[in-house]
């Protein structure tokens, strides 16, 4: 048998394939007037609100489910599944009145039973909801009648409106009639969700595409954007290409580097607004040297964060100045300004503190050297920031050893306070409460004060602020807290990434401009011009 023939056939086939594939994808994607094509950098694994904790899941959940209250300008609560709510004078009993005539996407009617079931499941430890821990002050959720729910709290809590009314998605009790809470985690509901929101899930091809269409039973009428096509494109250049070819309308979470590429094209508009997340270097106060406020202030003065914001991030970030995220304009204390980049002042502080420069270029006092380990989870930007921090600290006489850990190990290490300096972040919540992070009664495992920061005056502000429902009085407390922490530095403020997005001119988003998830809150009312 002649072996050459199969080989030749192989070549012809390959040549044909090559030629044909070249002609392949010149055709553009299907585009119509009523479909919004959104690009995301990743996909969710499930849409079950009881088990998810990823941004991409929250995005879908916001479109498919409703909360009791929505979010308006400046994060104010607006009616959604609840039409009104009020608390008694002490703030330990809340009455929530529900909207009538609401239906689930399978046609079943919505009632208070759904709210009580959702909260029962959320609070039950057997369910394993990661956020259940922050609701330990809720004693009972009771349905007074089919359209009224009462929340009984063990103590007043100022975060109730934001964390309970505006954050929790309500789930259909009738779907889970015979399902025990321990089985909720593996329920197929995560792949086939049913909600009261403006959209329902049509199809989901994991890590590729998720198609949502208008929910015919939605209480708000008919959305002007009838279909949302979420396309998962993992890398930034691919997303750029899709936008440039006109194959997509909205790039959610574009990188600062890629903005430059699209900026030259007049067909796009950009969003660049401060976000709800803060990035900082958490400090472990049990490490000798770091407990000296002069050392902390010197590190803050000696760190060139301006270079990071202007140079590395191309102004797509905001300088950190306070523990409150920059997006919370009402709650940020305007009097607290970011530390300037002043290495001379840093050195002066260290000299005044008795930290003398040794022959190895590292400062020391009484046998204790200013040498610390800087831990961070691996990421390209993180590596650059770490290298930059290390160089800046070396210039003022502090030796930094960089330790890059993979994400899981980093979380584990910080949760067990096995760090000296850790580059981490916090936030995503429009409420200004920072108790779990900074209060001295919140050392792990009780809370998230992994650095063992202790300041009685700050404790008072935080504890009072948590139970003060009056907005003006609450702001005064948090302003005081911000002034004190800016001086005391429980953490080194870094640069906070802005929310960046790019969208085609045919898209007309409705106000207000809130970052991330909140930007899409009103997507059903956006106007789309023909493509």
């Amino acid at each position, binding site marked *: 048998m002649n072996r050459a023939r199969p080989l030749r056939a192989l070549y012809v086939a390959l040549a044909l394939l090559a030629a044909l594939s070249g002609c392949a994808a010149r055709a553009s994607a299907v585009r119509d007037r009523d479909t919004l094509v959104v690009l995301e950098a990743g996909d969710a694994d499930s849409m079950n609100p009881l088990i998810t904790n990823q941004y991409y899941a929250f995005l879908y959940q916001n479109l498919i489910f409703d909360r009791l209250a929505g979010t308006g300008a400046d994060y104010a609560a607006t009616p959604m599944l609840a039409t009104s709510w009020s608390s008694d004078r002490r703030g330990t009993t809340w009455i929530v009145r529900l909207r009538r005539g609401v239906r689930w996407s399978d046609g079943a009617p919505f009632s208070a039973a759904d709210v009580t079931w959702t909260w029962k499941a959320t609070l039950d430890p057997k369910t394993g909801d990661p956020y259940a821990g922050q609701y330990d002050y809720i004693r009972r959720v009771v349905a007074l009648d089919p359209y009224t729910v009462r929340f009984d709290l063990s103590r007043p809590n100022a975060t109730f409106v934001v964390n309970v009314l505006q954050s929790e998605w309500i789930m259909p009790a009738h779907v889970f009639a015979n399902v025990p809470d321990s089985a909720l985690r593996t329920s197929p509901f995560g792949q086939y969700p049913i909600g009261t929101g403006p959209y329902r899930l049509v199809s989901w091809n994991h890590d590729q595409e998720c198609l949502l269409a208008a929910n015919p039973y939605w209480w708000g009428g008919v959305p002007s954007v009838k279909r949302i096509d979420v396309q998962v494109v993992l890398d*930034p250049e691919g997303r750029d290409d899709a936008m440039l070819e006109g194959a997509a309308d909205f790039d959610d979470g574009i990188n600062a580097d*890629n903005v430059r590429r699209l900026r030259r094209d007049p067909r796009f508009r950009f969003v660049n607004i401060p976000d709800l997340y803060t990035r900082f270097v958490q400090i472990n106060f049990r490490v000798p040297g770091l407990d000296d406020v002069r050392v902390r202030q010197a590190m803050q003065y000696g760190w060139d964060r301006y*270079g990071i914001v202007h*140079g590395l991030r191309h102004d797509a970030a905001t300088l950190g100045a306070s523990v409150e995220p920059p997006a919370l304009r009402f709650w940020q204390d305007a009097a607290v300004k970011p530390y300037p980049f002043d290495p001379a002042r840093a050195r002066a502080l260290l000299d005044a503190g008795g930290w003398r420069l040794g022959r190895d270029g590292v400062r020391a006092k009484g046998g204790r050297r200013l040498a610390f380990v800087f831990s961070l989870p691996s990421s390209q930007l993180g590596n650059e920031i770490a290298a930059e921090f*290390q*160089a*800046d600290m070396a210039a003022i006489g502090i030796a930094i050893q960089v*330790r890059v*850990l*993979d994400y899981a190990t980093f979380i584990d290490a910080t949760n067990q306070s096995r760090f000296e300096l850790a580059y981490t972040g916090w936030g995503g919540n429009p409420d200004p409460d920072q108790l779990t992070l900074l209060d001295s009664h919140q050392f792990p495992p009780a809370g998230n004060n992994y650095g063992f920061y202790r300041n009685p005056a700050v404790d008072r502000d935080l504890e009072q602020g948590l139970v003060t429902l009056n907005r003006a009085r609450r702001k005064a407390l948090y302003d005081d807290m911000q002034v004190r922490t800016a001086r005391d530095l429980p953490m080194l403020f870094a640069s906070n990434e802005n929310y960046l997005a790019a969208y085609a001119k045919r898209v007309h988003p409705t106000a207000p401009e809130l970052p991330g998830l909140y930007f899409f809150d009103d997507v059903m009312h956006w106007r789309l011009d023909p493509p």
Partner: protein
Amino acid sequence: MIAFLRRFARERPAVGGLVLLALIVAAALIGPLLWAHSPTAIDHADLGAPLPPSAAHPLGTDVLGRDQLARALQGARVSLTVGVTAMLVAIVVGSLYGAIAGFAGGRSGGLMMRFVDAMLSFPTFFLIITVEALTNRFSLLVIVLVIGLLSWMGVARLVRGEVLTLREREFVEAARAIGASPARIVLRHLLPNSLGPIVVAGALAIGDNILVEAGLSYLGLGVQVPTASWGNMLQDALGPTAIGAPWLVAVPGALIILTLLGFNLVGDGLRVAFEGSA
């Protein structure tokens, strides 16, 4: 020995490879002493703007303003050290294991080789990544051990094969007759006579190890910031920044390719030189 060297010298590509390697090693050793720029010094004025090659920076600078030539030299030291050391670990472990398995023969020898087969069934690359990610201490020592301990199996097979043929030779019979202990026979007679394939495998292994280390560093699981390695120099080289800065991608890649070319040419030459003596 002289005959061996002469055979090697006749292979011109191999000699070329040797010269290339000598240059690279020399640069790695002496370079940092002659070139003043630091591989980790950051230029605040140029953050986010890599500079093309110039008189001040012959290989350009990267996104943090660090001199690429200094980083390339440091990377040479790191990559070569990891490559050679990991090779030594693999060679030592593999040769001893293979020699013992070959010499023992029979049941126990067979069992030992079954273990090698089992180890070879692992998806090595995935395993390296898993081990690196899980141990999470990225010191050079750990990297060397991980790479070395996951690549000794090939050497073991090779040496076992050699020992099986050598076992029946007269000098081994003679040694046994004198009453030499098995350990002595393995160490003094069998291993030295298997040296040929071991050395060739070693030369080629250095190249492979450098590739593995580069890959690990690129994924962030190898040499850590701020120390430069050819692999982690490529970490920042992807994306829009790199498009305007092709030198960031070209330099580390070219260095890896050249170094591997050197090792492969030398390895090939050694193989020819050894075979001529069989």
